[in-house]
């Protein structure tokens, strides 16, 4: 799914081509902020999905490996944004966006994956009906004793 990544690329292009610095800074900042918020939300979803059994530890580890890269890339992007505002430099703003562009696509894919896993868990019963039937006579037997 490349939709989100395409939006990021379009924003980068807009920032490059924009002649109004303040507007470009605002757009770049909003985009970086939205990506950060999305990452925090997806990370929270993976924690809950692991606890509920919707995903296994290997799936969690895949996201954790990606998350480590994202966490390393995010602060420099924010710093570039600050420096760009301070120096009134559009190019730095665009660089801040591009630093995160390659991570936006995978982040969206991880979001879709965990959402689908949670959805599958909801429609799949965790305890098979046959197991439930077997335990009922045993419990009845205990009461009779």
């Amino acid at each position, binding site marked *: 799914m490349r939709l*989100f990544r395409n939006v990021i690329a379009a924003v980068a292009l807009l920032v490059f081509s924009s002649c109004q610095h*303040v507007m470009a*800074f605002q757009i770049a900042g909003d985009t*970086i902020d939205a990506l950060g*918020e999305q*990452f925090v939300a997806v990370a929270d979803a993976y924690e809950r999905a692991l606890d509920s059994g919707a995903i296994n530890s290997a799936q969690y580890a895949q996201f954790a490996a990606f998350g480590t890269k*994202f966490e390393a890339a995010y602060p420099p992007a*924010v710093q570039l944004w600050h420096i760009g505002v301070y120096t009134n430099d559009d190019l730095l703003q665009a660089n801040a966006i591009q630093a995160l562009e390659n991570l936006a696509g995978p982040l969206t894919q991880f979001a*879709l994956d965990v*959402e689908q896993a949670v959805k599958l868990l909801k429609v799949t019963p965790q305890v098979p009906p046959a197991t439930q039937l077997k335990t009922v006579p045993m419990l009845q037997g205990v009461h009779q004793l």
Partner: protein
Amino acid sequence: MTELEVSLISGVASLVEQIVTSIIASTSMTDAQKSAALTALGAKLDATAAKVAAVKFRSP
């Protein structure tokens, strides 16, 4: 259209809406207001960066 597609599109639409709102707002601002808006956005970005850094992953 699946529920997942709707969710993704609404997320992207939200970002686009935020950008358009920023464009409209910044065109009618004075220089002082623009400066204040950027300062506020900078603080918001720092707060988000702190939240990103606070995300911890469990070891296998």
